[in-house]
């Protein structure tokens, strides 16, 4: 029940699909069942320059049809708001440092459900997406581009190692397939 991928499809079947912006510059990495919560899958877009964009994977509950987002908040604790993150200079001083489990934001849905989105990678927080604050539906319409959650800059030395705990596209698809089979098996 993943949302439509944003890979462009040609108008006529004869034309090949044009690789999207994400296809061209990013590698997709996944973390499934983040913090043990079933299906709360995240997708990390890693640019060739090591910058990571944190997004929701298509299988995330928030992106399922029928889900309505009431509000999104970057206030993750009494003392910490991701909106207060200030970064200066070429070396991005002053940024909030994130570990894999660091919370980025909280999503409140109309059905009472609350979801916490985690960083999944270690690094400096560059920015959080303020556009989804004003228009939460953006997150559901364009989760891989305009509906991104945050941008993280890993340490230069760690740029390769951060993906060690993550799943490749193929591995993620296998996980999803397994889930579906498990569900059909039990039903």
């Amino acid at each position, binding site marked *: 029940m993943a949302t439509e991928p*944003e890979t*462009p*499809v*040609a*108008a006529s079947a004869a034309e090949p699909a*044009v690789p*999207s*912006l994400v296809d061209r*510059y990013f590698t997709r990495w996944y973390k499934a069942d983040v913090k043990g919560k079933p299906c709360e899958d995240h997708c990390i877009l890693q*640019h060739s*320059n*090591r*910058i990571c*964009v944190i997004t929701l994977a298509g299988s995330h509950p928030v992106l399922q049809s029928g889900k309505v987002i009431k509000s999104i908040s970057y206030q993750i604790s009494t003392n910490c708001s991701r909106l207060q993150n200030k*970064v*200066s*200079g*070429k070396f*991005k001083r002053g940024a909030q440092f994130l570990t894999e489990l660091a919370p980025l934001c909280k999503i409140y849905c109309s059905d009472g459900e609350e979801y916490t989105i985690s960083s999944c990678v270690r690094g400096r927080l*560059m*920015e959080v*997406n303020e*556009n989804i604050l004003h228009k939460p539906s*953006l997150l559901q319409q*364009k989760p891989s*581009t*305009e509906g*991104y959650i945050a*941008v993280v*800059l890993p340490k230069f030395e760690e740029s390769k190692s951060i993906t060690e705990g993550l799943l490749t596209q193929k591995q993620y698809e296998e996980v999803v397939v397994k889930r579906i089979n498990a569900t059909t098996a039990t039903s």
Partner: protein
Amino acid sequence: MFPLTVENKHVAQLLLSTGTCPRCIFRFCGVDFHAPYKLPYKELLNELQKFLETEKDELISEVPNPPPKKIRLQELEDGIDGMDNLSQNGEGKISIIEDGSIASKNSNLNVCNVCLGILQDFCEKEFIKKVCQKVEASGFEFTNLVLSISFPPQLSVREHAAWLLVKQEMGKQSLSLERNDTVQLKEAYKWITHPLFSEELGVPIDGKSLFEVSVVFAHPETVEDCHFLRAICPDCFKPAKNKQSVFTRMAVMKALNKIKEEDFRKQFPCPPNSPKAVCSVVEIECAHGAVFVAGRYNKYSRNLPQTPWIIDGERKLDSSVEELISDHLLTVFKAESFNFSSSGREDVDVRTLGNGRPFAIELVNPHRVHFTSQEIKELQQKINNSSNKIQVRDLQLVTREAIGHMKEGEEEKTKTYSALIWTNKAIQRKDIEFLDDIKDLKIDQKTPLRVLHRRPLAVRTRIIHSMEAHYVDEHHFRLYLKTQAGTYIKEFVHGDFGRTKPNICSLMDVTADILELDVESVDVDWPPALDD
């Protein structure tokens, strides 16, 4: 005509007997016209001897010290090797050759105690010829030159000592001596050597010349002459990171200006003692100031970086714009290295069309600098024939100041582009017509993700002055844009995750991406167009 007069006799006698060469004697006697200095050393010595050969009465009756020449020679022939009354500080130091005869022999071995040989052999034709040979061998092309001579700092100390000595001697005659009454060593050296260099090399000496010949002298034997100054004026000699020795000429001069006469005399002999050897030439170097070549380049490849693309020592893409242009210039100008700069730049996959982008190349230490405009045209042709990835035009020599015009272009002038845009939704001609009517659209661009790793995070406001859309098919159109300098075009098209607002996606309510980008023009009117 011999430049010294009766007034100078005592000083001249004193200096000669304590080991000072004729030209230095002239300097301390205030001889401030060039001609005497240019005479050959032997001749000067002879003339000086003749001048000093006065009636015994004249000298003896006035000054007891020093003894007349005849007596001195006699004593020498008798082989006396120490004469206290000749030097002021009580030490018997004389610079006299072993075999006893001063005057008649060319005193090559008699090293001047003030100039350490600089105004002896080192300003005469033979030495100049040697230097000029090196200059000619270096392979530089030049029509004038500037001479840069570096003397060892201890010369200032010796000069100071001699000056104090002369001042004292003149005081006895109730005459005063100011600093300006004596001729500086460097001045005299220039008077003698500049015409010799000019003649030998066939070019004038010009202070503004870009071609520099530098000669560095050192005198290791007397290096410690300066050291006593540090104890007396320690703050003049603070160690600086780049300098090998704290005893630089500037520091030594500063200390000499500060030190009191009594303190100086306690530490340093007046007159200075005679060294055993002359100065040595540490280096003779030639260098030419940088020359600048400017032009405009077109880039026709979508696979060529502007500068070499090397990661971890590995070249990722073959060649670069700067190398394709500069390598030829390096060869023809016979330069050591180059610095390439341009009025902005484009990505690897972007072409530069139209009149091209202005660039300037600084050629460092060029050995060849004179080119006719025909030769430059041929050089341009050569570059253009050697590659179809780039082409250059308006290639010309420019001054360093002109570079400012180019950098001005980078920030202030407008650029025009053409972009091939893909849309996910099918479009009709009418869907893109509105773009033609948008004028001076203000956009806010956050630092694009693709450069965020090396640029500060910021929001830049830029203006899209005008656009023109040309329909291609249901999913493609070509967009011509005229924008402010510093606008990220690719991000304006695809929106960069919504971080550039507004963008083509938001304006058209589609998902759009950029397939191709070309720079159509860089609106800088420099360098001047040449009629090729």
